[in-house]
Structures are given as structure tokens and as C-alpha cells.
């Protein structure tokens, strides 16, 4: 019974996408059917049949930092996300968008095994990271988290000095180089150095919200990860601080792969190169509706639901 249910859901998702993608070229709000839509639909050669709604013709040439295959996540008996497959391109900003409760944060927390910390949570499927499945129980979650850093929704600096906040990750990972330089370098990259260089002994908690968030980014950078996950990093900040964080994301993308969860579509449009749109169905199970270059997702969505969300019809 349960197996049938899953097969049903798995097979239904791509069909729905294809159908709505076809419909989309019809008489909808986007006036003339953009020329590349048909191309997209045709060229959607499914190299990997599990990658639904992914524009392969664009992504296949890219170097992938992560490759998700049929990832599902559960909290106890509740399924939060179902059967998501998509790539995360290297040295790009990928935004995960969608209405509340669609599983964006859950998905993000799969990438660095943060869900391991929640009792009763489990993740199925495969996330390929440098040729290995990072969801594999044999893979050391601590090592995964060292290489895939994370910045949280609410700034959470440690109740330690600014210096110690940045040095913390390096210290626990046995960094033996010049700590002062690492701290300075990390704070510079997080665009915080000039504001705090004279008060590195001050508590990280004494900084403003925006500064705290940049401190958390510096803290993540200091571990020298390959990927930085950001879970609505600017949602608790004022517009000026938000802009600074966004600029920072763009800069960081030169060296790191960035995955950002955001509620704010303008933000996704401003900062990301690629966008994944997630949506939860009636049973509150989040599914991937569409993945592609941000520009395409925003201007020519393949799926009607993506367009409805982008144009603010719900969510």
C-alpha cells in the first residue's frame, strides 16, 4: 500500500510539470510565448530521469557542487519533502524559494546533515558531494558540516569575543596556521573587518543584528568550506543590512558555492544565479516544482504554479 502510494507520487510529479509546462505556452498572462520555452520543453533531455523540471540543457555543462537524487525527508511519520532531484552548481548562488512550509529549510538542512540532530528525523535518497553520497550513514556528519558551512536565519554568534567567534571553527578543526591572519581574512571577506578591527575583544553579542550576521558568515568562512548554506540570512535584518548581506553573497559566490533559502522573491531575483521553486501539496509534503537559471524561472517559468507564485498570486 505504502509503496504504491510512493510510486504514485513519484511518477505524478514529472507528469504534472510537463503538463503545466505545456499549458504555459498557451493563453496565459505572459503575452507572446517566449521563443525558448518550446526549446526548453524539447531540449529537456532527461539525462537522469529523476531530475524533474530541471533545465538540463543549461545545467549539464556546469560543474556541480552537489547533485540531489530523489531526496525525501521525514520528521517521524510526517514527510516534509518528497523525491527532490536537482543539481547545485559550483561557485554559483542557488536560491530555494517557495511559500512557508514547503520544505525549503528542511532541504537546506539535508545538505549538511543538520537534520541528524533532530530526534526522529530521517532523510532518504542521495546527495552526491565529490563523488560520494553525503547522506550515507558511513559518511562522517562532522566532516560534512566542516566542508559545508551554514548561516542561520537569526544571527547566532557565540557569547565570546569577535575574535574567538571567528577562530572557533578553525580551532576545533585543528587549524595550525596564523590564527590572526585567518581571523582578519575571514572578517574582511565577510565585509566586517573595517567595522570591528579595533574591538576584536568585544563580545560578538554586542554587535548590531546585521554585523552579527556578517560575523556568522565570517565564522563560517574561517573553516574554509566549499559550500555555504544560508537559511533566510537577512530575514531578521533591516533593509540596509539586508543589502549588505546580499552584496556579500554575490562576492562570496566567486569562491564558494552558495545555497540560500529565501522568502523574499526580489532577493532571490537579485542575488541568485539559479532558483529552485518548491511547493507543498495538500498533504503538506514539499516537492520541487521547477529548477533553472533564475532569469528563466522569473521570466519564463515552465510551470504554471511557479508563475503564480512569482507573480504573487499565492504564497
Amino acid at each position: 500500500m505504502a509503496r504504491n502510494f510512493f510510486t504514485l507520487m513519484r511518477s505524478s510529479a514529472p507528469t504534472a510539470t510537463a503538463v503545466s509546462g505545456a499549458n504555459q505556452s498557451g493563453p496565459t498572462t505572459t503575452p507572446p510565448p517566449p521563443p525558448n520555452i518550446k526549446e526548453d520543453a524539447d531540449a529537456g533531455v532527461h539525462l537522469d530521469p529523476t531530475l524533474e523540471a530541471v533545465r538540463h540543457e543549461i545545467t549539464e555543462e556546469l560543474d556541480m557542487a552537489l547533485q540531489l537524487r530523489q531526496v525525501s525527508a521525514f520528521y517521524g511519520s510526517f514527510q516534509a519533502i518528497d523525491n527532490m532531484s536537482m543539481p547545485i552548481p559550483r561557485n554559483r548562488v542557488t536560491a530555494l524559494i517557495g511559500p512557508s512550509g514547503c520544505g525549503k529549510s528542511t532541504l537546506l538542512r539535508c545538505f549538511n546533515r543538520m537534520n541528524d540532530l533532530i530526534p526522529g528525523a530521517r532523510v532518504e535518497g542521495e546527495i552526491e558531494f565529490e563523488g560520494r553520497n553525503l547522506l550515507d550513514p558511513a559518511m562522517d556528519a562532522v566532516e560534512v558540516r566542516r566542508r559545508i558551512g551554514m548561516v542561520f536565519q537569526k544571527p547566532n554568534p557565540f557569547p565570546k569575543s569577535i575574535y574567538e567567534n571567528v577562530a572557533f571553527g578553525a580551532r576545533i578543526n585543528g587549524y595550525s596556521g596564523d590564527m590572526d591572519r585567518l581571523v582578519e581574512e575571514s572578517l574582511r571577506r565577510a565585509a566586517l573587518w573595517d567595522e570591528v578591527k579595533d574591538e576584536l575583544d568585544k563580545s560578538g553579542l554586542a554587535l548590531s543584528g546585521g554585523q552579527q550576521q556578517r560575523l556568522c558568515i565570517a565564522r563560517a568562512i574561517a573553516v574554509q568550506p566549499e559550500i555555504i548554506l544560508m537559511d533566510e540570512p537577512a530575514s531578521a535584518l533591516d533593509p540596509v543590512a539586508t543589502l549588505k548581506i546580499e552584496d556579500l553573497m554575490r562576492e562570496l559566490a566567486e569562491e564558494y558555492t552558495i545555497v540560500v533559502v529565501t522568502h523574499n522573491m526580489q532577493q532571490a531575483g537579485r542575488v541568485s544565479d539559479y532558483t529552485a521553486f518548491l511547493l507543498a501539496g495538500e498533504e503538506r509534503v514539499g516537492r520541487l516544482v521547477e529548477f533553472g537559471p533564475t532569469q528563466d524561472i522569473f521570466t519564463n517559468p515552465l510551470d504554471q504554479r511557479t508563475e503564480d507564485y512569482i507573480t504573487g498570486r499565492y504564497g
Partner: protein
Amino acid sequence: MAAQAPDGPQQDTVRSLLAELWRDRLQPSRPGSGRETPVGRLIHGALFLTATLSAFVTIGIVLVLIFETVEFFREVPFLDFFGSTRWSALFAEKQFGVWALVWGTGMIALIGLAVAIPLGLMAAIFLSEYSPPRLRAIVKPILEILAGVPTVVFGYFALVSVSPVIRDIFGQDVGIYNALSAGIVVGLMIVPIIASLSEDAMRAVPRSLREGAYALGSTRMEVSLRVVLPAAFSGVVASIILAASRAVGETMAVTIAGGGNPQFGVNPLEAVQTMTAMIVQLSLGDTPTTSIEFKVLFAVAMTLFVLTLAMNIVAQWVSRRFREEYE
């Protein structure tokens, strides 16, 4: 019309009464605003008395202590009390060097803390960071029950269980009454204070801090020792000082197991006498209320009181001074 006429004013009265009541609910009258009924005033007064009773009792005790202590120092010079380490209050040739007793108390408390701090902190870290919620729900109440075991039981436990082991280890010349044995059971007695209060402090550390540390590639041990424990520092230190204060004030176990030997020596295998045990000894005998032995009891009690009070003040200061605000 006629039938409704009497209702009109009545309803109005009811309504205004209700309005009155509601207004009172919404804007509680301040004390002394003069709007209370006699019954209200009576209850108010009774509550005030109950609330202040313990304060009055404390003040009364302190006053008695001060009064009798002053009496004592009229007969015995201040320096004989605080300037000497020899105590022989019940002998013909009386000496009142309180340091012998303070030392005994201090030694027992230090041994107790040496036992309780590692045990208590490890228990707290386990319960807060490692234990599955269900196990914690069972273990923590049991740990807290340990705090409810009558201290006289701990005293006998020291004599019949701990001292024999000490004698097996250090040789049979060691007396059954010794500071080490008493100190160890005092330590066991205060483990729940440290474990329970430290665990509360550690669990109050926001989850977001733990997640932040895990996201940097910390192991559970690193999260516990480098993030949670330092973040809970004020609570942990306060729990330790509170436990120390309890150890200093502990009476029954040390009276039974410590031996009655007021002395100023560093060997924990010898018998000692604490301030509390001395007070027991002095007040058990048929000491006349006018005698110097009776009065010295108050001087010792005063010393003890000042000591524990100071510790409690330090504990409060530490927990305020080092408290981290996360919002």
C-alpha cells in the same frame, strides 16, 4: 412598559456594577489607593504578614546572634577568637581560636567540592547534551531525590561504607572518624545541587548556539565543552557556590563522621571538627545559658552565618555579572 419599568434601573445597577468590577480587573487598584473593602484590607494585611514573616524571623535571628556575640566578646578578647587556631572550649583551660573550626569546615567543604564538581558537571553535561529525553526524564528526578536523603543517613553511610574503604586504602591506623570520609559524603550530598542547577543553566542555552557550533563541524563533545558550558558559565558557577555554601552549613553528616577534633592540620585522614559540629556539641551538653560556653556558640554561629551569607551574595553577583543575554 409598566412591567419593564422596574427592570430599567435595576439593570443599570447591575451593568454599572459589572462595569465597576471589570474596571477593577483591568486596572487593579494600587496598594494604598483607598478603594479596598474591609475584607480586602484584611486579606491584604494577612498576605503582607505572611510575606514578611520570614524576613522578620531572619532579622530576629540575626539580632539574637549579634546580641549574644557582643556579650561573648565582652568576656573574651576579639583576638583570642580570631587570632588563634587552638580551640578547647569545653576544657578547664579554655581556648577559643575559631580558625580550628573554620579550617575543619573549609577542609570538609573543599573535599566535598573536589568530589561534587566533577561528578555534578559530568552529570549535568550528560543530562543536558547527551541523554535521550526519556532517560533524562527518569534520571533527573532520581538525582534530585538524592538531595532529599536525610543527612544523618549520609553520616552513617560515611562511617559504615566510606571509612572502611579509606582504611583499606590508607592503612588501619586511619581513624574511622576522619575528614576525608566526611568530605566525600558531603560531596555526594551536594552533587544533585550542582548537577540539577547546572543542567538547568545548560539547557537554557539557546538551541541556535548549539546548531551554530555543529554547523562549523563540532563534535558533540566540543559543542558541550566549548559552547554550552561557557555559555552557561554564570549558572554553573552559581550552582557551585550554592553547593559550597550548603557544604559549609552541613551539620549532621560531619558531626557523625568528622570526629570531634578541632584542629588545624592539613592531613585529611585525621579527625576534624567543623563549626556546625561544634555548635551541636555545645548545645547538646547541659550548658548553662549564662556560661561562656553558651555564648561562644553564638559567636561561632555568627561566623558561620557571615560566611554562608557572603557565599550566597557572591553566587548572586556572579550569576548577574556573567549572565549572557541572547536577545
